[in-house]
């Protein structure tokens, strides 16, 4: 590879820097123009979405491999490259980020508290997320990763609710503990490889000793795994989700948790396949526990957002289980699940957001009978719940199908246990749906208007995506597969 390589218009950089530009522009808008801030945010989000869609459509799954490559040597002495590229694994993630950002901005349209700061921080957060997804250089992955963690604290502590300081602090500490494991992991690999390059693929070519891989993998797995909500390091996530404001929960559960799983796959599994083989048993076990455990704990929750938080734990367990199988089907399913779960949770939080905005409560016992007063707003949550249960023809069904098939094949006992978790998750989701939306009309909420079309639009987009990929899963799975097949073959 040459030191500098620009295949065409640097579209990935354009996406990445459009968010930073948005941040800058927002900072220069006067405080008393909140409307303008929202419009600018929406505009930039739309640009990002359009560019991501372009990447999604222009990515050629038949050719596979890295496309839209941008690679510039940045620090020669350390071997740091500004290296962005898209492959089958991160194309869905980039699209997911763009969709969640766009719908998140729309969801927060009625925000009236420190609007400017809120959107500025959101864009900083998203810049970090894009950076991690696009970078193929360990140094940059780590830097962008920390960039994405930092804004979480103020976002939750300022705009949040329900024990927000506690939640924000807990989340930050957990995630920093994660990055405290990732950094030495990365540096260890870099040093063992001679300290000449941070380029992911050059490191992969150099290869590592089995022993090195085992040590490095467990550091990277735990570090990224904390962010992915791996049991038993998951408790920050429900607490954080509950405390965060709606769109931050959307980005956080929808995208940020995927960063963890993506990191395990992109860094851990790419560089330390032997390490993965060594630790796969443990990974599968923790993932299975997470799937079943999350569903059971979810049964006991009375706060809508806690419920979604624990469902995330359960669903992210499916991602972990898929990765741990080390098969094409399993990893296909895992990546597909990252995408589907991202959209699904975004929908969940977005739906709860409207209910919470209007009723000022998210306690299930205080709600009830909402379907009567706001049928549309309720329908979005119910659809998300169906997706969470794994109803076919919604995208996460396919992901779960692939993961479960490969899991039963690779780890029969754990696979069967995970499949049985489906019953519990059905029970737990339907219970919430029943208690919140069914039943007699609650006179307390009778005056609340149903969600108007504009405010419903982000949810419509998300539902549309879930059903679209549920009906036509190949449109995304073929792209994912174009990266997963060579990846598994190279192990």
């Amino acid at each position: 590879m040459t030191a500098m390589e620009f295949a065409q218009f640097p579209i990935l950089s354009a996406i990445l820097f459009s968010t930073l530009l948005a941040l800058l522009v927002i900072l220069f808008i006067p405080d008393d123009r909140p409307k303008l801030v929202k419009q600018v945010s929406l505009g930039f989000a739309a640009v990002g979405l359009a560019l991501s869609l372009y990447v999604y459509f222009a990515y050629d799954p038949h050719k596979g491999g890295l496309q839209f490559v941008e690679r510039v040597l940045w620090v020669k002495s350390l071997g740091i490259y500004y290296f962005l590229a898209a492959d089958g694994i991160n194309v869905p993630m980039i699209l997911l980020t763009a969709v969640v950002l766009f719908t998140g901005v729309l969801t927060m349209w009625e925000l009236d508290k420190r609007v400017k700061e809120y959107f500025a921080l959101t864009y900083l957060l998203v810049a970090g997320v894009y950076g991690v997804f696009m970078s193929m250089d360990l140094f940059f992955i780590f830097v962008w990763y920390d960039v994405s963690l930092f804004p979480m604290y103020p976002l939750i502590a300022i705009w949040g609710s329900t024990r927000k300081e506690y939640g924000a602090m807990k989340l930050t500490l957990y995630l920093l503990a994660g990055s405290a494991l990732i950094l030495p992991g990365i540096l260890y690999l870099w040093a063992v490889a001679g300290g000449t390059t941070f380029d992911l693929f050059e490191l992969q070519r150099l290869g590592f000793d089995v022993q090195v891989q085992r040590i490095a993998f467990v550091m990277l797995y735990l570090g990224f795994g904390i962010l992915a909500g791996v049991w038993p390091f998951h408790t920050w996530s429900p607490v954080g989700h509950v405390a965060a404001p709606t769109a931050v929960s959307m980005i956080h559960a929808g995208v940020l948790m995927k960063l963890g799983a993506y990191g395990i796959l992109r860094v851990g599994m790419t560089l330390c396949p032997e390490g993965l083989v060594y630790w796969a048993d443990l990974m599968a076990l923790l993932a299975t526990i997470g799937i079943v455990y999350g569903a059971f704990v979810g049964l006991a929750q009375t706060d809508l957002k806690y419920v979604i938080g624990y469902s995330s734990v359960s669903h992210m367990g499916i991602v972990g289980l898929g990765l741990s199988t080390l098969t094409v089907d399993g990893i296909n399913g895992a990546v597909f699940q990252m995408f589907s779960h991202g959209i699904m949770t975004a929908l969940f939080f977005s739906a709860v957001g409207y209910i919470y905005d209007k009723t000022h409560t998210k306690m299930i016992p205080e709600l009830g009978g909402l379907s009567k007063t706001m049928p549309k707003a309720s329908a979005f949550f119910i659809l998300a719940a169906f997706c969470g249960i794994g109803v076919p023809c919604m995208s996460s069904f396919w992901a779960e199908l692939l993961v479960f098939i490969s899991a039963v094949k690779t780890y029969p006992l754990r696979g069967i246990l995970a499949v049985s978790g489906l019953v519990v998750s059905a029970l737990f989701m339907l219970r919430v749906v029943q208690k919140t939306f069914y039943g007699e009309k609650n006179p307390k909420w009778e005056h609340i208007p149903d969600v108007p079309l504009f405010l419903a639009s982000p949810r419509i987009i998300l539902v549309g995506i879930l059903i679209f990929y549920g009906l036509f899963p190949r449109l995304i799975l073929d792209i994912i597969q174009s990266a997963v097949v060579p990846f598994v073959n190279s192990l």
Partner: protein
Amino acid sequence: MMWLPHDPVLSAALACATLPFLSMAVILIFTRPYQRLSCAISVGAITVCLGCALYLLITLRHAPAPVEYQWAWIVSSDMVIPFGFLLDRLSLLMLTIVAVISFLVQVYSIGYMHGDPGFSRYYAFQSLFAWAMMTMVIAPGMLQLYIFWELVGLASYLLIGYYYEKWSASQAGKKAFVMTRLGDIGFFLGIITVLLGFGDLGILHMNHAAQAGDIHPAVVTLGAILIFCGVVGKSAQFPLLTWLPDAMEGPTPVSALLHSATMVAAGVYLMSRIFPFFAASPDAMAVALIIGTITMLLASTMAFVTYDIKQVWAYSTVSQLGFMVMSLAAGGYFAGVFHLTTHAGFKALLFLCSGIFIHEYHTNDMREIGRGGGRKLTIPMICMTVGALALAGIFPFSGFFSKEAILGVLAEHPNKLFLGAGLLGAAMTAYYSFRLIFFILFPRSTAEEASHHEEAHGHGDDHGGGHHGHVFWAMAWPVMILATVTLVLGFFQNELQSYLLALEPASHGHEAVEHGGHGVGHYLLLVTAVCLAVGGVFFAYLEFGWKKATQEGFLRKFPAVETLFANRWYMDHFYRKALDLLVYCGFTNVFTRNDRRVIDGGIDGICRFTVGGGRAVSFLQSGMLQYNLVLMVAAVGVLVLVFAL
């Protein structure tokens, strides 16, 4: 993907697999506020589907080989999950049944659901069901079948909980979903077993390979038993049968369509779909036979004691499904499918007739309907009697023929116990169905209830004037059509048999028995069965119809047994206890505590320790020179000690 719009067969199949979905989408997104339009869209879509299904049945009835279309739905590594259509004799028969009954029920619902605020939603869900069910029926592979099987379950959940403001309705929907899901886990694992053990999920391939012995027998047995779990859930077999009676919370047309005629028969359909595969495993067949028998008898006893008209039919559905499972498991492929067909007709008829009564008298209680003057509604009363005669297995109604066919199969089984159970079941069925008929035909009013009786009577008469409105006729026409079907269907037994069996070489061995069963034993069996059925009806007449009858039933003399039956053999109590103990108090409680106390408690503890440690150490940083000096000296002392030793 290659679309072939010039192929009329494919176009017809595609129409069945897409139109109702589009209808649902259009209704939910655009036409929800316009009730009539929604209804028109849905009924229009199902009418086209009905036409397509009939067209397919007629054009392909002599097709020498099954017609198959497939496209790759998803491709992952070497696993391809196809979406497509398998049009053979069995699937076309079932497709037609589903389309006909869906069509009749949707027309009937125009009257029954008239004026309901959720009218559009109702039709959207009906379309969802029609789409899922029809696509499931013509699925060429197990995974597609499973996918639409689950979607049918979703439609069932939504329709049971249609009156969602009623707590019991949403509860019943949830119960139905979770209980069938329990069975579906087995189904799913069974599919994976076949996938791992054989590698191909095409239904035809599975059947051929299992018959030819190309699949390891252990895989066949394990796969068949696991797949049978799905049947147990969906077709409400023992021990997962209690959701079906609860499912009667849904609107009556829904009960007619989903919870008696078509959806719950999907389990039986699945068994017949992969019948050669099942038949290759004698162990799986034995398990199914036992489960079917238990279900049939258990459910019949429950029907003895309930006064809810829909509950009686629900229990009878469960027991008839058990009867079909018995037939299939005893090797009677044709008899099982034939009974499925006739049952779909007469059970839908019974429910739709009951629906007219319920619509009229606003109660499900058969005694109150009788007192209210139920017998004055002549059309539904006659039609319901026709349905009950078919259910009881009286000549010449359709149920007679299919029941005889099943009993003939059971008679060939080496273990005569199953034949005995079948005969007993037939007698019980006749008894409880005519118990209901006589309750409505010959109402009794106790003295204190006489005034109430008059009142209700008057109420009934008031409505009498409205019988000729379009509401009544929308309900009456489908009922009359179904009654006609019930009357004539039995005489087409031979046609159906030659139609279905022409392409089933695998099951010829068993069917030969059915063909040749016209000996003396056969007539003896026929006479016995008829005597038992007539005896059951007569016994019911003695207890409920006759002028001096007490209308109490012989079970009143055994209160313990009556309570046992009325409480569904305490199965629900058992499930409730198990759920409470195991799930809520067990895992949920322990895991939640673990989350709070151990994991969070541990982390918070570490934090407190860190903060506390920081505080403690901060005393050292007091800024006073003396302390610093003392510390310095102490530190140097420690260092000296360390290095000196």
